[in-house]
Protein backbone atom coordinates (compact mmCIF):
# COMPACT_ATOMS: atom_id res chain seq x y z
CA UNK A 1 0.00 0.00 0.00
CA UNK A 2 2.56 2.46 1.21
CA UNK A 3 4.88 1.53 -1.62
CA UNK A 4 2.20 2.26 -4.21
CA UNK A 5 1.70 5.66 -2.74
CA UNK A 6 5.42 6.34 -2.78
CA UNK A 7 5.79 5.00 -6.30
CA UNK A 8 3.12 7.28 -7.74
CA UNK A 9 4.45 10.20 -5.74
CA UNK A 10 7.98 9.73 -7.07
CA UNK A 11 6.80 9.29 -10.65
CA UNK A 12 4.64 12.39 -10.35
CA UNK A 13 7.37 14.53 -8.86
CA UNK A 14 9.88 13.48 -11.52
CA UNK A 15 7.54 14.39 -14.35
CA UNK A 16 6.42 17.45 -12.37
CA UNK A 17 9.59 19.22 -13.50
CA UNK A 18 7.80 19.85 -16.79
CA UNK A 19 5.08 21.69 -14.88
CA UNK A 20 7.78 23.60 -13.05
CA UNK A 21 9.28 24.75 -16.33
CA UNK A 22 5.90 25.84 -17.70
CA UNK A 23 5.19 27.62 -14.41
CA UNK A 24 8.55 29.41 -14.57
CA UNK A 25 7.70 30.54 -18.10
CA UNK A 26 4.38 32.03 -17.08
CA UNK A 27 5.97 33.65 -14.05
CA UNK A 28 8.95 35.15 -15.87
CA UNK A 29 6.81 36.71 -18.56
CA UNK A 30 4.49 38.05 -15.90
CA UNK A 31 7.53 39.43 -14.10
CA UNK A 32 8.67 41.65 -16.96
CA UNK A 33 5.37 42.35 -18.74
CA UNK A 34 2.90 42.22 -15.82
CA UNK A 35 0.67 40.32 -18.20
CA UNK A 36 -0.30 36.68 -18.55
CA UNK A 37 0.71 35.01 -21.80
CA UNK A 38 -2.05 32.46 -22.29
CA UNK A 39 -0.48 31.05 -25.44
CA UNK A 40 2.60 29.86 -23.55
CA UNK A 41 1.73 26.18 -23.05
CA UNK A 42 0.37 26.01 -26.56
CA UNK A 43 3.60 27.48 -27.94
CA UNK A 44 5.58 24.98 -25.87
CA UNK A 45 3.71 22.01 -27.31
CA UNK A 46 3.93 23.68 -30.71
CA UNK A 47 7.71 23.86 -30.32
CA UNK A 48 7.87 20.18 -29.41
CA UNK A 49 5.87 19.40 -32.58
CA UNK A 50 8.20 21.55 -34.66
CA UNK A 51 11.20 19.65 -33.36
CA UNK A 52 9.66 16.34 -34.32
CA UNK A 53 8.31 17.42 -37.70
CA UNK A 54 11.41 19.37 -38.77
CA UNK A 55 13.83 16.61 -37.87
CA UNK A 56 11.48 14.03 -39.41
CA UNK A 57 11.23 16.04 -42.64
CA UNK A 58 15.01 16.18 -42.84
CA UNK A 59 15.07 12.40 -42.52
CA UNK A 60 16.62 12.47 -39.04
CA UNK A 61 15.71 10.15 -36.21
CA UNK A 62 17.92 11.22 -33.33
CA UNK A 63 15.91 11.94 -30.20
CA UNK A 64 18.54 14.42 -29.09
CA UNK A 65 18.19 16.32 -32.34
CA UNK A 66 14.41 16.39 -31.96
CA UNK A 67 14.85 17.70 -28.48
CA UNK A 68 17.30 20.48 -29.43
CA UNK A 69 15.18 21.44 -32.42
CA UNK A 70 12.10 21.66 -30.20
CA UNK A 71 13.89 24.05 -27.84
CA UNK A 72 15.14 26.21 -30.71
CA UNK A 73 11.79 26.29 -32.51
CA UNK A 74 9.96 27.21 -29.32
CA UNK A 75 12.42 30.08 -28.81
CA UNK A 76 11.54 31.39 -32.26
CA UNK A 77 7.83 30.96 -31.56
CA UNK A 78 8.35 32.88 -28.30
CA UNK A 79 9.77 35.80 -30.24
CA UNK A 80 6.87 35.70 -32.70
CA UNK A 81 4.41 35.68 -29.79
CA UNK A 82 6.14 38.74 -28.37
CA UNK A 83 5.98 40.61 -31.68
CA UNK A 84 2.40 39.72 -32.49
CA UNK A 85 0.76 39.68 -29.07
CA UNK A 86 2.68 42.20 -26.97
CA UNK A 87 5.03 44.53 -28.80
CA UNK A 88 2.40 46.66 -30.49
CA UNK A 89 -0.58 46.07 -28.20
CA UNK A 90 -1.08 48.89 -25.70
CA UNK A 91 -0.06 47.58 -22.28
CA UNK A 92 -2.45 50.02 -20.62
CA UNK A 93 -5.42 48.13 -22.02
CA UNK A 94 -6.23 45.58 -19.31
CA UNK A 95 -7.46 42.84 -21.63
CA UNK A 96 -5.56 43.63 -24.84
CA UNK A 97 -2.72 41.16 -24.54
CA UNK A 98 -4.91 38.60 -22.82
CA UNK A 99 -7.12 38.45 -25.89
CA UNK A 100 -4.22 38.47 -28.33
CA UNK A 101 -2.59 35.55 -26.51
CA UNK A 102 -5.86 33.59 -26.46
CA UNK A 103 -5.96 34.13 -30.19
CA UNK A 104 -2.39 32.88 -30.49
CA UNK A 105 -3.21 29.81 -28.38
CA UNK A 106 -6.02 28.89 -30.76
CA UNK A 107 -3.93 29.64 -33.81
CA UNK A 108 -1.01 27.45 -32.76
CA UNK A 109 -3.42 24.71 -31.78
CA UNK A 110 -5.12 24.91 -35.14
CA UNK A 111 -1.83 24.81 -37.04
CA UNK A 112 -0.80 21.70 -35.10
CA UNK A 113 -4.11 19.97 -35.79
CA UNK A 114 -3.80 20.70 -39.49
CA UNK A 115 -0.17 19.68 -39.73
CA UNK A 116 -0.83 16.33 -38.02
CA UNK A 117 -4.39 15.72 -39.23
CA UNK A 118 -5.49 15.72 -35.63
CA UNK A 119 -3.82 12.38 -35.01
CA UNK A 120 -1.40 11.95 -32.07
CA UNK A 121 2.20 11.40 -33.14
CA UNK A 122 4.78 9.14 -31.50
CA UNK A 123 7.58 10.97 -29.69
CA UNK A 124 11.01 9.44 -29.18
CA UNK A 125 12.17 8.87 -25.59
CA UNK A 126 15.29 10.80 -24.67
CA UNK A 127 16.79 7.87 -22.87
CA UNK A 128 16.07 4.18 -22.66
CA UNK A 129 17.58 1.76 -20.21
CA UNK A 130 16.82 -0.46 -17.27
CA UNK A 131 14.82 0.85 -14.34
CA UNK A 132 16.72 1.79 -11.25
CA UNK A 133 15.53 -0.13 -8.22
CA UNK A 134 15.56 1.50 -4.84
CA UNK A 135 14.27 -1.22 -2.56
CA UNK A 136 10.77 -1.81 -3.84
CA UNK A 137 10.71 1.49 -5.65
CA UNK A 138 11.22 1.62 -9.40
CA UNK A 139 12.69 4.78 -10.88
CA UNK A 140 11.85 4.87 -14.58
CA UNK A 141 14.90 5.94 -16.57
CA UNK A 142 12.94 8.14 -18.97
CA UNK A 143 11.34 9.93 -16.02
CA UNK A 144 14.70 10.32 -14.39
CA UNK A 145 16.02 11.82 -17.61
CA UNK A 146 13.11 14.25 -17.70
CA UNK A 147 13.90 15.23 -14.15
CA UNK A 148 17.61 15.65 -14.85
CA UNK A 149 17.04 17.76 -17.94
CA UNK A 150 14.48 19.86 -16.07
CA UNK A 151 16.89 20.52 -13.22
CA UNK A 152 19.65 21.32 -15.68
CA UNK A 153 17.41 23.79 -17.50
CA UNK A 154 16.49 25.47 -14.22
CA UNK A 155 20.14 25.68 -13.21
CA UNK A 156 21.10 27.30 -16.48
CA UNK A 157 18.19 29.73 -16.15
CA UNK A 158 19.22 30.65 -12.61
CA UNK A 159 22.79 31.29 -13.72
CA UNK A 160 21.51 33.37 -16.60
CA UNK A 161 19.31 35.44 -14.30
CA UNK A 162 21.79 35.95 -11.49
CA UNK A 163 25.17 35.83 -13.18
CA UNK A 164 24.74 37.51 -16.54
CA UNK A 165 24.27 41.02 -17.84
CA UNK A 166 20.99 40.03 -19.50
CA UNK A 167 19.81 38.55 -16.21
CA UNK A 168 20.62 41.74 -14.34
CA UNK A 169 18.69 43.71 -16.94
CA UNK A 170 15.74 41.32 -16.75
CA UNK A 171 15.52 41.57 -12.98
CA UNK A 172 15.89 45.34 -13.17
CA UNK A 173 13.04 45.62 -15.66
CA UNK A 174 10.78 43.38 -13.61
CA UNK A 175 11.44 45.27 -10.37
CA UNK A 176 11.47 48.85 -11.56
CA UNK A 177 11.03 49.43 -15.30
CA UNK A 178 11.39 53.21 -15.17
CA UNK A 179 14.68 53.05 -13.30
CA UNK A 180 15.85 50.25 -15.59
CA UNK A 181 15.39 52.53 -18.58
CA UNK A 182 17.24 55.30 -16.78
CA UNK A 183 20.15 52.90 -16.38
CA UNK A 184 20.21 52.52 -20.15
CA UNK A 185 18.42 49.18 -20.32
CA UNK A 186 16.25 48.95 -23.45
CA UNK A 187 12.86 47.64 -22.37
CA UNK A 188 11.90 46.10 -25.70
CA UNK A 189 15.10 44.12 -25.96
CA UNK A 190 14.79 42.68 -22.49
CA UNK A 191 11.15 41.83 -23.11
CA UNK A 192 11.94 40.14 -26.40
CA UNK A 193 14.82 38.22 -24.81
CA UNK A 194 12.52 37.05 -22.03
CA UNK A 195 10.09 35.64 -24.57
CA UNK A 196 12.87 33.82 -26.38
CA UNK A 197 14.34 32.38 -23.18
CA UNK A 198 10.99 31.30 -21.77
CA UNK A 199 10.13 29.94 -25.21
CA UNK A 200 13.20 27.72 -25.11
CA UNK A 201 12.27 26.55 -21.61
CA UNK A 202 8.76 25.76 -22.84
CA UNK A 203 10.11 23.85 -25.83
CA UNK A 204 12.24 21.77 -23.49
CA UNK A 205 9.19 21.12 -21.30
CA UNK A 206 7.06 20.24 -24.33
CA UNK A 207 9.64 17.81 -25.69
CA UNK A 208 10.02 16.19 -22.27
CA UNK A 209 6.28 15.76 -21.98
CA UNK A 210 6.25 14.16 -25.41
CA UNK A 211 9.16 11.95 -24.43
CA UNK A 212 7.65 10.84 -21.13
CA UNK A 213 4.16 10.21 -22.50
CA UNK A 214 5.58 8.65 -25.65
CA UNK A 215 3.44 10.77 -27.93
CA UNK A 216 2.20 14.29 -28.56
CA UNK A 217 -1.38 15.31 -29.11
CA UNK A 218 -3.06 18.69 -29.48
CA UNK A 219 -5.22 17.55 -26.57
CA UNK A 220 -2.25 18.20 -24.30
CA UNK A 221 -2.46 21.95 -24.75
CA UNK A 222 -5.47 22.84 -22.67
CA UNK A 223 -4.63 20.74 -19.58
CA UNK A 224 -1.04 21.99 -19.74
CA UNK A 225 -2.22 25.59 -19.89
CA UNK A 226 -4.44 25.05 -16.88
CA UNK A 227 -1.75 23.17 -14.93
CA UNK A 228 0.83 25.81 -15.79
CA UNK A 229 -1.44 28.56 -14.50
CA UNK A 230 -2.26 26.60 -11.36
CA UNK A 231 1.45 26.05 -10.70
CA UNK A 232 2.07 29.77 -11.23
CA UNK A 233 -0.63 30.76 -8.77
CA UNK A 234 0.35 28.20 -6.14
CA UNK A 235 4.00 29.20 -6.48
CA UNK A 236 3.10 32.86 -6.28
CA UNK A 237 2.93 35.02 -9.39
CA UNK A 238 6.46 36.21 -10.17
CA UNK A 239 8.30 33.70 -7.96
CA UNK A 240 10.65 31.29 -9.70
CA UNK A 241 11.44 29.13 -6.65
CA UNK A 242 7.69 29.07 -6.04
CA UNK A 243 7.02 27.82 -9.56
CA UNK A 244 9.67 25.11 -9.21
CA UNK A 245 8.32 23.77 -5.93
CA UNK A 246 4.69 24.13 -7.00
CA UNK A 247 5.39 22.24 -10.23
CA UNK A 248 6.89 19.29 -8.37
CA UNK A 249 4.09 19.45 -5.84
CA UNK A 250 1.28 19.50 -8.39
CA UNK A 251 3.00 16.73 -10.35
CA UNK A 252 3.26 14.47 -7.29
CA UNK A 253 -0.19 15.34 -5.97
CA UNK A 254 -1.87 14.70 -9.29
CA UNK A 255 -0.20 11.37 -9.83
CA UNK A 256 -1.02 10.10 -6.35
CA UNK A 257 -4.67 11.04 -6.81
CA UNK A 258 -4.67 9.47 -10.22
CA UNK A 259 -3.52 6.26 -8.59
CA UNK A 260 -6.20 6.32 -5.89
CA UNK A 261 -9.10 7.99 -7.69
CA UNK A 262 -8.45 7.45 -11.39
CA UNK A 263 -7.55 9.74 -14.25
CA UNK A 264 -11.04 11.19 -14.64
CA UNK A 265 -11.25 12.46 -11.09
CA UNK A 266 -7.68 13.57 -10.62
CA UNK A 267 -7.97 17.09 -12.04
CA UNK A 268 -10.84 17.74 -9.69
CA UNK A 269 -8.45 17.39 -6.78
CA UNK A 270 -5.85 19.58 -8.43
CA UNK A 271 -8.51 22.26 -8.70
CA UNK A 272 -9.33 21.69 -5.07
CA UNK A 273 -5.67 22.18 -4.19
CA UNK A 274 -5.72 25.46 -6.09
CA UNK A 275 -8.86 26.45 -4.24
CA UNK A 276 -7.24 25.72 -0.87
CA UNK A 277 -4.29 27.88 -1.83
CA UNK A 278 -6.44 30.72 -3.08
CA UNK A 279 -8.33 30.77 0.20
CA UNK A 280 -5.53 30.19 2.69
CA UNK A 281 -2.43 31.38 0.90
CA UNK A 282 -3.42 33.61 -2.00
CA UNK A 283 0.11 35.02 -2.32
CA UNK A 284 1.46 31.57 -3.11
CA UNK A 285 4.00 29.30 -1.45
CA UNK A 286 6.59 31.99 -0.92
CA UNK A 287 4.32 34.98 -0.50
CA UNK A 288 6.19 38.16 -1.43
CA UNK A 289 8.31 39.68 1.29
CA UNK A 290 7.08 43.01 2.55
CA UNK A 291 9.26 45.87 1.50
CA UNK A 292 10.11 49.29 2.72
CA UNK A 293 9.56 51.96 0.18
Amino acid sequence: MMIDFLQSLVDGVLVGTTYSLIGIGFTLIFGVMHKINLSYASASVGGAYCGLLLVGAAGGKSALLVFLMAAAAAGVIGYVVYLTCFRFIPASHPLGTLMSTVGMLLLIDEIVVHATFGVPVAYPPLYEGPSIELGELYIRPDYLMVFAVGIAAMTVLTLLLYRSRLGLATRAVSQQPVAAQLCGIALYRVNAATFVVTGVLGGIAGAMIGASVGMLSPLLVLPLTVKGLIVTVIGGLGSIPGAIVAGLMVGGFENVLQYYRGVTERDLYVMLLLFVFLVFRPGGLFAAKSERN
Partner: protein
Amino acid sequence: MLRVGDVVTAYGQLEALKGVSVAAESGKITCLLGPNGAGKTTLMMTVTGLLKPKRGSIAFEGQELVGLSPSEIVARGVALVPENRLVFPDMSVRENLEAGAYLRRKPAEIAADLDRMFERFPRLKERAGQSAGTLSGGEQQMLAVARALMSRPRLLLMDEPSLGLAPLIVEEIFRIVAELNRDGTSIFLVEQNAHMALKVAHHFYLIEQGRVTFSGSPGQLAEDEVIQRAYLGSKRG
Protein backbone atom coordinates in the same frame (compact mmCIF):
# COMPACT_ATOMS: atom_id res chain seq x y z
CA MET B 1 25.53 72.30 -21.89
CA LEU B 2 21.78 71.52 -21.80
CA ARG B 3 19.33 73.71 -23.67
CA VAL B 4 15.64 73.00 -23.44
CA GLY B 5 13.73 75.13 -25.94
CA ASP B 6 9.99 75.72 -25.90
CA VAL B 7 9.14 72.16 -24.90
CA VAL B 8 5.51 71.09 -24.79
CA THR B 9 4.76 67.71 -23.20
CA ALA B 10 1.22 66.42 -22.78
CA TYR B 11 -0.52 63.52 -21.07
CA GLY B 12 -3.35 62.93 -23.50
CA GLN B 13 -5.09 66.29 -23.80
CA LEU B 14 -3.49 67.79 -20.71
CA GLU B 15 -0.39 69.85 -21.45
CA ALA B 16 1.84 69.51 -18.40
CA LEU B 17 4.60 71.58 -20.01
CA LYS B 18 3.32 74.53 -22.01
CA GLY B 19 6.45 75.71 -23.76
CA VAL B 20 9.30 75.43 -21.27
CA SER B 21 12.74 76.84 -21.96
CA VAL B 22 15.55 76.30 -19.47
CA ALA B 23 19.30 75.83 -19.69
CA ALA B 24 21.97 74.22 -17.54
CA GLU B 25 25.50 75.57 -17.78
CA SER B 26 28.55 73.36 -17.74
CA GLY B 27 30.16 73.02 -14.32
CA LYS B 28 27.26 74.72 -12.55
CA ILE B 29 24.35 73.74 -10.34
CA THR B 30 21.05 74.79 -11.85
CA CYS B 31 17.84 74.49 -9.84
CA LEU B 32 14.26 74.25 -10.90
CA LEU B 33 11.80 75.13 -8.16
CA GLY B 34 8.06 74.92 -8.25
CA PRO B 35 4.93 73.71 -6.49
CA ASN B 36 3.31 70.28 -6.77
CA GLY B 37 2.02 69.54 -10.21
CA ALA B 38 4.02 72.34 -11.84
CA GLY B 39 5.56 69.93 -14.33
CA LYS B 40 9.03 69.43 -12.84
CA THR B 41 9.01 65.64 -13.05
CA THR B 42 7.46 65.84 -16.49
CA LEU B 43 10.42 67.95 -17.62
CA MET B 44 12.93 65.45 -16.20
CA MET B 45 11.15 62.57 -17.91
CA THR B 46 11.10 64.49 -21.19
CA VAL B 47 14.81 65.29 -21.06
CA THR B 48 15.70 61.65 -20.33
CA GLY B 49 13.52 60.37 -23.17
CA LEU B 50 10.92 58.61 -21.04
CA LEU B 51 8.29 61.01 -22.37
CA LYS B 52 8.16 62.33 -25.91
CA PRO B 53 7.52 66.07 -26.21
CA LYS B 54 4.84 67.26 -28.61
CA ARG B 55 7.03 70.16 -29.59
CA GLY B 56 10.32 71.82 -28.83
CA SER B 57 13.97 70.88 -28.76
CA ILE B 58 16.39 69.57 -26.17
CA ALA B 59 20.03 70.02 -27.00
CA PHE B 60 22.82 68.47 -24.97
CA GLU B 61 26.33 69.61 -25.86
CA GLY B 62 24.91 70.75 -29.17
CA GLN B 63 23.24 67.44 -30.03
CA GLU B 64 19.49 67.03 -30.23
CA LEU B 65 18.08 64.57 -27.70
CA VAL B 66 14.44 64.62 -28.79
CA GLY B 67 13.71 61.37 -30.62
CA LEU B 68 16.48 59.42 -28.90
CA SER B 69 15.66 56.49 -26.63
CA PRO B 70 16.39 56.70 -22.89
CA SER B 71 19.37 54.39 -23.27
CA GLU B 72 20.86 56.52 -26.05
CA ILE B 73 20.46 59.56 -23.84
CA VAL B 74 22.21 57.87 -20.91
CA ALA B 75 24.97 56.86 -23.30
CA ARG B 76 25.45 60.53 -24.25
CA GLY B 77 26.15 61.43 -20.63
CA VAL B 78 22.87 62.48 -19.03
CA ALA B 79 21.66 60.56 -15.97
CA LEU B 80 18.61 61.09 -13.80
CA VAL B 81 18.15 60.40 -10.11
CA PRO B 82 14.42 59.85 -10.32
CA GLU B 83 11.74 61.14 -8.02
CA ASN B 84 11.06 58.62 -5.22
CA ARG B 85 14.51 57.06 -5.82
CA LEU B 86 13.15 53.96 -7.59
CA VAL B 87 15.87 51.59 -6.41
CA PHE B 88 15.60 47.96 -7.49
CA PRO B 89 14.18 46.62 -4.23
CA ASP B 90 15.05 42.93 -4.56
CA MET B 91 18.55 43.47 -5.86
CA SER B 92 21.52 44.02 -3.59
CA VAL B 93 23.08 47.45 -3.22
CA ARG B 94 26.01 46.26 -5.29
CA GLU B 95 23.75 44.97 -8.06
CA ASN B 96 21.87 48.27 -8.11
CA LEU B 97 25.18 49.99 -8.75
CA GLU B 98 26.12 47.46 -11.41
CA ALA B 99 22.81 48.14 -13.13
CA GLY B 100 23.76 51.83 -13.15
CA ALA B 101 26.86 50.90 -15.12
CA TYR B 102 24.83 48.76 -17.53
CA LEU B 103 25.99 50.52 -20.70
CA ARG B 104 29.65 50.47 -19.78
CA ARG B 105 31.80 47.60 -21.00
CA LYS B 106 35.08 47.78 -19.10
CA PRO B 107 34.84 45.62 -15.95
CA ALA B 108 38.02 47.06 -14.46
CA GLU B 109 36.76 50.64 -14.72
CA ILE B 110 33.37 49.66 -13.35
CA ALA B 111 35.01 47.95 -10.38
CA ALA B 112 37.12 51.04 -9.73
CA ASP B 113 34.03 53.26 -9.84
CA LEU B 114 32.23 50.89 -7.49
CA ASP B 115 35.05 51.34 -4.99
CA ARG B 116 34.86 55.10 -5.41
CA MET B 117 31.11 55.03 -4.73
CA PHE B 118 31.66 52.96 -1.60
CA GLU B 119 34.26 55.48 -0.52
CA ARG B 120 31.94 58.40 -1.07
CA PHE B 121 28.95 56.62 0.46
CA PRO B 122 30.38 54.48 3.28
CA ARG B 123 26.91 53.46 4.40
CA LEU B 124 26.34 51.76 1.06
CA LYS B 125 29.54 49.83 1.52
CA GLU B 126 28.33 48.44 4.85
CA ARG B 127 25.16 47.32 3.11
CA ALA B 128 26.65 46.19 -0.19
CA GLY B 129 25.11 42.73 -0.03
CA GLN B 130 21.79 43.78 1.47
CA SER B 131 18.73 44.10 -0.75
CA ALA B 132 17.99 47.72 -1.57
CA GLY B 133 14.37 47.47 -0.47
CA THR B 134 15.49 47.10 3.14
CA LEU B 135 17.47 50.37 3.18
CA SER B 136 16.19 53.49 4.93
CA GLY B 137 14.85 56.35 2.83
CA GLY B 138 18.08 58.31 3.14
CA GLU B 139 20.19 55.30 2.22
CA GLN B 140 17.98 54.59 -0.78
CA GLN B 141 18.48 58.17 -1.92
CA MET B 142 22.26 57.80 -1.64
CA LEU B 143 21.98 54.58 -3.61
CA ALA B 144 19.90 56.26 -6.32
CA VAL B 145 22.52 59.00 -6.63
CA ALA B 146 25.39 56.52 -6.69
CA ARG B 147 23.57 54.38 -9.26
CA ALA B 148 23.13 57.37 -11.55
CA LEU B 149 26.81 58.27 -11.13
CA MET B 150 27.83 54.77 -12.18
CA SER B 151 26.97 55.70 -15.77
CA ARG B 152 29.61 58.46 -15.55
CA PRO B 153 27.28 61.28 -16.50
CA ARG B 154 28.54 64.73 -17.41
CA LEU B 155 25.14 66.13 -16.50
CA LEU B 156 23.34 64.77 -13.45
CA LEU B 157 19.63 65.44 -13.20
CA MET B 158 18.07 65.08 -9.77
CA ASP B 159 14.34 65.06 -9.12
CA GLU B 160 13.52 66.12 -5.54
CA PRO B 161 16.32 64.24 -3.79
CA SER B 162 15.22 65.66 -0.42
CA LEU B 163 11.66 64.33 -0.69
CA GLY B 164 10.47 62.77 2.54
CA LEU B 165 13.86 62.85 4.28
CA ALA B 166 14.76 64.14 7.74
CA PRO B 167 16.49 67.54 7.87
CA LEU B 168 19.86 66.05 8.78
CA ILE B 169 19.77 63.69 5.82
CA VAL B 170 18.64 66.51 3.55
CA GLU B 171 21.73 68.48 4.58
CA GLU B 172 23.90 65.48 3.80
CA ILE B 173 22.30 65.14 0.37
CA PHE B 174 22.96 68.78 -0.44
CA ARG B 175 26.51 68.49 0.82
CA ILE B 176 26.96 65.62 -1.64
CA VAL B 177 25.42 67.68 -4.44
CA ALA B 178 27.89 70.48 -3.83
CA GLU B 179 30.74 67.99 -3.61
CA LEU B 180 29.84 66.27 -6.86
CA ASN B 181 29.66 69.63 -8.56
CA ARG B 182 33.05 70.62 -7.20
CA ASP B 183 34.45 67.40 -8.63
CA GLY B 184 33.26 68.44 -12.06
CA THR B 185 29.73 67.12 -12.59
CA SER B 186 27.19 69.62 -13.87
CA ILE B 187 23.92 69.36 -11.99
CA PHE B 188 20.33 70.16 -12.79
CA LEU B 189 18.33 69.89 -9.60
CA VAL B 190 14.57 69.87 -9.18
CA GLU B 191 13.44 70.82 -5.70
CA GLN B 192 10.65 72.04 -3.53
CA ASN B 193 13.01 72.70 -0.67
CA ALA B 194 13.82 76.23 -1.87
CA HIS B 195 15.84 77.13 1.20
CA MET B 196 18.39 74.40 0.69
CA ALA B 197 18.35 74.59 -3.08
CA LEU B 198 19.13 78.32 -3.14
CA LYS B 199 22.19 77.72 -0.97
CA VAL B 200 23.85 75.52 -3.59
CA ALA B 201 22.41 76.87 -6.84
CA HIS B 202 24.32 79.09 -9.23
CA HIS B 203 21.19 79.76 -11.22
CA PHE B 204 17.56 78.90 -10.67
CA TYR B 205 14.20 78.81 -12.39
CA LEU B 206 10.70 78.91 -11.05
CA ILE B 207 8.13 76.80 -12.83
CA GLU B 208 4.41 77.12 -12.22
CA GLN B 209 1.62 75.32 -14.02
CA GLY B 210 3.82 74.20 -16.86
CA ARG B 211 5.47 77.58 -17.51
CA VAL B 212 8.77 79.08 -16.40
CA THR B 213 7.91 82.21 -14.42
CA PHE B 214 11.32 83.30 -13.22
CA SER B 215 14.92 82.83 -14.17
CA GLY B 216 17.82 84.36 -12.29
CA SER B 217 20.54 83.89 -9.70
CA PRO B 218 19.76 83.21 -6.03
CA GLY B 219 20.31 86.79 -4.85
CA GLN B 220 17.87 88.21 -7.35
CA LEU B 221 14.61 87.33 -5.65
CA ALA B 222 13.84 87.49 -1.93
CA GLU B 223 14.01 84.02 -0.44
CA ASP B 224 10.59 84.45 1.12
CA GLU B 225 9.06 85.01 -2.23
CA VAL B 226 10.87 82.05 -3.80
CA ILE B 227 9.71 79.81 -0.98
CA GLN B 228 6.19 81.08 -1.31
CA ARG B 229 6.13 80.48 -5.05
CA ALA B 230 7.98 77.16 -4.88
CA TYR B 231 5.47 75.71 -2.48
CA LEU B 232 2.24 77.36 -3.42
CA GLY B 233 2.72 79.05 -6.75
CA SER B 234 2.15 82.76 -7.27
CA LYS B 235 -1.37 84.03 -7.05
CA ARG B 236 -2.01 84.47 -10.72
CA GLY B 237 -5.53 83.08 -11.20
